[in-house]
């Protein structure tokens, strides 16, 4: 294992400067040549934003969304893992017992009564997403986040769920998580056999 690791690492060496390179003249000339080439080629490289929106890679870490489960309920189980992991302290959850009198909620014990993220304080590191045991919070590729007041940028549960609805509608699902399937904690144990055994399982574990 360690052998393989050392082989995959390539150590770079700084190239030695010759007499000509040390003069810097060739570098200046080639730089000027590039500038002149672009000036006369007639091909603009300016991005025409916002008329033309750029293609954002689907693993971009933008605005958060709170996922819904198959029944449309908030998938979050209010375990506070994201709030604990958050290095910027921008997530605030208030948990409550699930409304058991509602027939839709009988299989859930705990849910977030409120869930707020301060999008201005957030540093978009994605730790919340990593920490979530049920894949309820995700960072989407929505990047154009604007608001007129600070208060407007504190997203509550409804707003975060609406980001989910919006991104699902426009097909901008993030790629990192196993979307569409419930995490273990929000899932009712299946009646049949469970999935494949975890990797690395030996004869006696």
């Amino acid at each position: 294992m360690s052998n393989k690791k050392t082989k995959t690492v390539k150590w770079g060496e700084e190239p030695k400067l010759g007499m000509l390179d040390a003069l810097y003249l060739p570098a200046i000339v080639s730089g000027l040549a590039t500038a002149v080439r672009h000036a006369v080629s007639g091909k603009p490289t300016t991005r025409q934003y916002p008329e033309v929106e750029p293609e954002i890679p689907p693993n971009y870490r933008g605005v958060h969304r709170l996922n819904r489960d198959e029944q449309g309920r908030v998938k979050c189980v209010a375990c506070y893992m994201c709030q604990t992991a958050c290095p910027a302290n921008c997530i605030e959850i208030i948990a409550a017992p699930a409304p058991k009198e509602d027939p839709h909620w009988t299989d859930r014990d705990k849910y977030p009564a409120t869930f707020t993220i301060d999008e201005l304080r957030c540093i978009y590191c994605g730790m919340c997403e990593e920490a979530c045991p049920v894949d309820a919070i995700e960072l989407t590729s929505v990047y154009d986040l604007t608001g007129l007041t600070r208060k407007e940028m504190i997203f509550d549960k409804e707003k975060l769920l609406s980001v989910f609805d919006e991104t699902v509608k426009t097909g901008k699902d993030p790629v990192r998580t196993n979307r569409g399937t419930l995490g273990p904690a929000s899932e009712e144990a299946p009646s049949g056999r469970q999935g494949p055994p975890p990797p690395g399982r030996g004869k006696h574990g």
Partner: protein
Amino acid sequence: MVKVKVNDIEVDAGPKDNCILAARKAGVEIPHYCWHESLSVVASCRMCLVEVGETKPDGTIAMGPKLVPGCQTPIKDGTVIRTDSPKVKAAQQMTLELLLLNHPLDCSICDQAGECYLQDYTYKYGKAHSRLDEPKLQRMDKYHIGDQIALFTDRCVMCTRCVRFTREISGTAELQVVARGSHEEIDVFPEEPCNNKLAGNVVDLCPVGALCSKDFLYKKRVWWLKQAESVCTGCSTGCSISIDQNENKVYRLRPRPNPEAQGHFMCDEGRFGFKYIHDERRLSTPRLSVALASGIESQRKTTSANFAPDLNFADLWPTALTKARQKIQDAIKADPSSFVAVFSPFMTVEEAYLLAKFIKGIHDKARLVLGPVPSVGVDDKYPKGPKGESPADGNVKFTIRAEKCPNRLGVEAVLKHFEGSVVRIESIAQRPNAHAWYIVGGYTSGWVTEAIDKAIGTPSLLIVQDIFPSPLSERADIVLASGSFAERDGTYVNHAGLAQSASAAVRAPGEARADGRILMELAGRTGLFNAMALRKEIGAAIPELSVLGSGDLGDQGVRLVRFAKQATAAAT
């Protein structure tokens, strides 16, 4: 003392210790679920299996052929305990795997996560994953177990600590095991919930998240709670507790094991009785009456006819305290014997000392009296008999005392030193002969009875230091908003003369201050309130409280000399 060897570490253990206690003395942890120091031994969880052997007279060690439960195995001189052999490790792994067979891995929504022995032991001694391919057994949650207790049935590991607690400590025996084998469940009889006055302890006893407190359910994850070691002020038993707070809000109280004070448990009255400290009606700013505040500029609006508008923030307390000090000095100098300071049994020893020294320092004839000592019914002793009767004297395992205040003895010791004898406010209520009063409250609820109200009347000077508004604070000249037990540093002396130190967990609401800080400044002392430094001073000044002289009272507290003599006399 017997000499035993735990994993090659020689240690002196007590003759009545089991293997778990002996190993603990050697600094070795033997994991266990069902065993608890103050409950009987059942050895049912099999988590504490260890290898035990003995040293033969010729020095050779003979290990037993099979593993034995450490909780049930007594020790003798030369006993050898091994907790790290492959055999023991395999047994621990197997036990945990079996316990986890039907345990739902819902740690993310379980309140116990973070202080769960199943999590901790699985991490330390268990396997990383399960080999179970079958579906887990699912069982209904039982919210009907008690008014304060919910049972998440499928998280239970059947250690039966809770069942044994209700049978052996509370004596009420509501909980039981129903069904057999892997269908075993904890349950109550229909319509007979577990609502005894010690019921909250089963939540602490539960090593996993099966029994949860409804009061604390989903309120806070436990890893955010910060603990402060304190003393319950609900009654004169003075249970050692830890106050769990986060962001200046107290979420729960838990008993701290202290064999000197109460043992391992506390009553529900104390456990859930702390809510008043976050009551909105609490006094949160010091106030001066209109007459006293004349000439002091203010930018705030007034909220009461009697009181001047609230003072500016910066000079709020200095103004109130300077006025108070000046008024007290004037009143005492005018007529010392008509000045009465009322001490509350909720004060700490330090606070009582500060106030008494200040008053007596002005004039020796000023009077100090003890305020009302709340008392409800008679001492409630456990375990109860089958018909709810109290146990015989020798068998008492827990007592909820009738005296509902923490520090009568401590305040009395201070009063005796400064006044010569303890005068109760009730005894002077008929003819108080007083024109100026300094009154300390701090009671958990309304304490001003009609008799006291009438006795105090409308004197020429009335200063009230309290946490809740009362008829007295409404007509007082100066109101000093003070702190509850969770906001105070200090010492409490319980019914048996055990002096325990308590530390502050939260800040007082608004601009209220802990009593010690108020009195420090009122007495014109320099520096900050420091309970330890004051204890040293008190220990030197008051012979009855000389044990406080060391300053640090430790986790378990120290007994006053008079009571320590009684305790040794009773023991011999």
